[in-house]
């Protein structure tokens, strides 16, 4: 029988769970745990400079590796600082366990120093949260937390640990449960065979089909199955912002991504389709535009692991609840066995129509003049990194440009806060990726607004040697806010202009990194090459881009999917 203190049990459970990294910040209520951490070397701890960054870092790690991230913070402010990060992970269904210290159980409810009801505060933004009530429970609670976080529709799980659960001199028997079974939690492991058959029949009969794939394909590790099915059918595919990389962007069947800033051809094809096969996406408002005008002629097959995502905003004709990989695999088998074949003539004329849409506009931007265009920066980076980099982004115009002009052929490489839209996400997320992918190029595409929301992490990058490349598309304004003000508020730029920007070069240097400024169009490619050649340095690249550029296409508010601005003057 092995006797351990609660703190040692916690760390031991993390080891037994196979956790490599914890991102965190110590404090009073977590000190027993930090001491246990000190006395071992299997689980490595990364000390951030602000708890929000710890969560984004764990998030970036989870998105790039597909494994749950782990965060450790103290009670009170340590815990509340994680909320934005947790909400970010929750909206994008990222598996994560956040371990929070808490004041001793005897003090709970007495407004003790650094006491916050973290279970209550986090409740609306977690998949689940758990409290430790006895030290002996710790291994089971930890096992349960990771099990819930990483199965079904993944999400963040908070574990609240009162300080007296980790007291060093109180030891209990350590038993790490082999299996967890919860009578009230049984995620689907396969889809309904009858529904899948029905869906395949509809796919075969469709004249204007489109596949609409989402982040669920990336999270469900189903890119291979999706690609196989789509190629087998020869149908067009679009994906959401979260689904980028789930199907190779360079493939001819890929129409780009859809929605508010999606491509003209993908939005047109969605609107005019007669069958939408939705795979692991959730018809959110940034995709559908006005729901009552959504794709009037389309029947909808919706595959999702979460039944609550189905028919939430758009009614599905054929709902299929199950893991996307298993469902797609069954569909592939059925398509192979099917006596029916797709209607070749109908599909050919559908492609002809789509190719016309492609030719009509496509992704393009005006690139005359002397100023550096933000789109041009992304295209250049994509070319110089062969489209192979891990790209994290913050939120705003730069995020949309990055998603539009960097072509991802693989999943898990485009990492952004799609659901919550959290500024300050990009740098810590990039750090989480770089830590486990030291030999890969990791780019953080950001803007001078977003980067300042977690810029303190430049210090963490120094401590742990994380040579990410920060690409700051500096337009000296909160670009997306300004764009909306231009379009909807007669260019009244209320609070969207940033005066007194820091000298980012000096700032990077102050943190011990390299800073590079690019402000001349003709220098762009050469300087970016130099930057990418500095393999072992974090380089902060401050690029002065066109201050007046807007992101297009852009759906017209309250319109249908096909109502878009294609540039400042062209509206369809």
């Amino acid at each position, binding site marked *: 029988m092995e006797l351990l203190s609660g703190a040692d049990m916690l760390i031991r459970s993390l080891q037994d769970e196979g956790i490599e990294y914890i991102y965190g910040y110590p404090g009073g209520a977590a000190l027993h745990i930090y001491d246990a951490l000190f006395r071992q070397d299997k689980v490595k701890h990364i000390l951030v400079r602000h708890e929000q960054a710890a969560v984004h870092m764990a998030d970036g790690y989870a998105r790039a590796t597909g494994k749950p991230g782990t965060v450790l913070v103290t009670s009170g402010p340590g815990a509340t600082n994680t909320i934005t990060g947790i909400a970010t992970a929750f909206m994008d269904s990222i598996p994560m366990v956040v371990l929070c210290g808490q004041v001793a159980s005897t003090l709970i409810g007495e407004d003790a120093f650094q006491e916050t009801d973290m*279970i209550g505060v986090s*409740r609306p933004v977690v998949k689940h949260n758990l409290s430790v009530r006895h030290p002996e429970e710790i291994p089971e609670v930890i096992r349960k937390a990771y099990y819930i976080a990483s199965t079904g529709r993944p999400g963040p799980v908070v574990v609240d640990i009162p300080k007296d659960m980790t007291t060093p001199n109180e030891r209990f028997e350590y038993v790490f449960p082999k299996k967890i079974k919860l*009578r009230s939690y049984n995620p689907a492991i396969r889809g309904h065979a009858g529904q899948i058959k029905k869906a395949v029949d509809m796919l075969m009969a469709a004249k204007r089909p489109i596949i609409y794939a989402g982040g669920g394909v990336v999270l469900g590790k189903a890119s291979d199955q999706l690609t196989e099915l789509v190629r087998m059918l020869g149908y067009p595919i679009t994906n959401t912002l979260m689904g980028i990389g789930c199907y190779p962007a360079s493939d001819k069947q890929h129409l780009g991504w859809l929605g508010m800033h999606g491509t003209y051809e993908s939005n047109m094809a969605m609107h005019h389709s007669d069958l939408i096969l939705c795979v692991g996406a959730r018809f959110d408002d940034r995709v559908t535009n006005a729901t009552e005008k959504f794709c009037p002629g389309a029947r909808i097959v919706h595959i999702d692991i979460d*039944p*609550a995502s189905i*028919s939430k905003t758009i*009614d599905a004709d054929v709902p299929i609840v199950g893991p996307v990989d298993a469902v797609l695999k069954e569909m592939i088998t059925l398509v192979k066995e099917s006596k029916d074949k797709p209607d070749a003539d109908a599909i050919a004329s559908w492609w002809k129509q789509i190719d016309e849409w492609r030719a009509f506009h496509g992704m393009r931007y005006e690139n005359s003049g002397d100023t550096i265009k933000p789109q041009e920066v992304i295209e250049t980076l994509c070319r110089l990194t062969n489209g192979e980099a891990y790209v994290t982004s913050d939120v705003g115009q730069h995020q949309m440009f990055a998603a539009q002009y960097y072509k991802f052929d693989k999943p898990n490489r485009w990492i952004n806060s799609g659901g919550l839209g959290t500024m300050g996400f990009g740098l810590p997320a990039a750090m989480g990726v770089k830590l486990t992918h030291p030999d890969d190029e990791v780019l953080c595409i950001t803007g001078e607004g977003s980067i300042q929301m977690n810029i303190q992490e430049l210090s963490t990058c120094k401590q742990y040697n994380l040579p990410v490349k920060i690409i700051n598309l500096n337009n000296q304004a909160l670009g997306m806010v300004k764009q909306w003000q231009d379009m909807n508020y007669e260019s009244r730029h209320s609070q969207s202009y940033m005066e007194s920007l820091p000298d980012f070069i000096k700032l990077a240097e102050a943190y011990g990194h390299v800073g590079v400024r690019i402000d001349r169009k003709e220098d762009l490619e050469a300087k970016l090459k130099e930057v990418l050649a500095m393999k072992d340095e974090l380089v902060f690249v401050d690029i002065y881009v066109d201050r007046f550029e807007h992101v297009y296409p852009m759906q017209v508010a309250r319109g249908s999917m096909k109502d878009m601005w294609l540039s400042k003057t062209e509206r369809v």
Partner: protein
Amino acid sequence: MRRIISVLLENEPGALSRVVGLFSQRNYNIETLTVAPTEDETLSRLTVTTTGSDKVIEQITKQLNKLIEVVKLVDLTEGSHIERELMLVKLKTTGSQRAEIKRTVDIFRGQIVDVTSSVYTVQLAGDSEKLDGFIQAVGTSGVLEVVRTGVSGIARGEKVLSL
């Protein structure tokens, strides 16, 4: 449309707040809510009455099912069912009113469970409409205090909500 959703919930601290939180967080209505442990002490049974379109009700049941601590649930209004609510009413009763009130209580098959010289406390069980009907019949002017438990319900026949 009014619905009665009956939920088997893990009897754990915080479980109830998750259910209640879900309703406010997603802008759903709670009209009544009752909760108590069942014969299996690890489980609570919670009954909530709510209103909403079919689409909203579908979302409510799906979202409830997603809560880790929700073991099982049923929308009782989908089938035939029995619903009951208990009410205690304190009525001001003096003089000739006392006999009249007593008769009304009998008609509604209630019981007078406490008596003082000026007050009757009446206990009444039934569906919510019956309880409303009683208040109407005695007239609101004599009502000093009302306390209602909210609706509990159970399906008719062989159907049971259990593990």
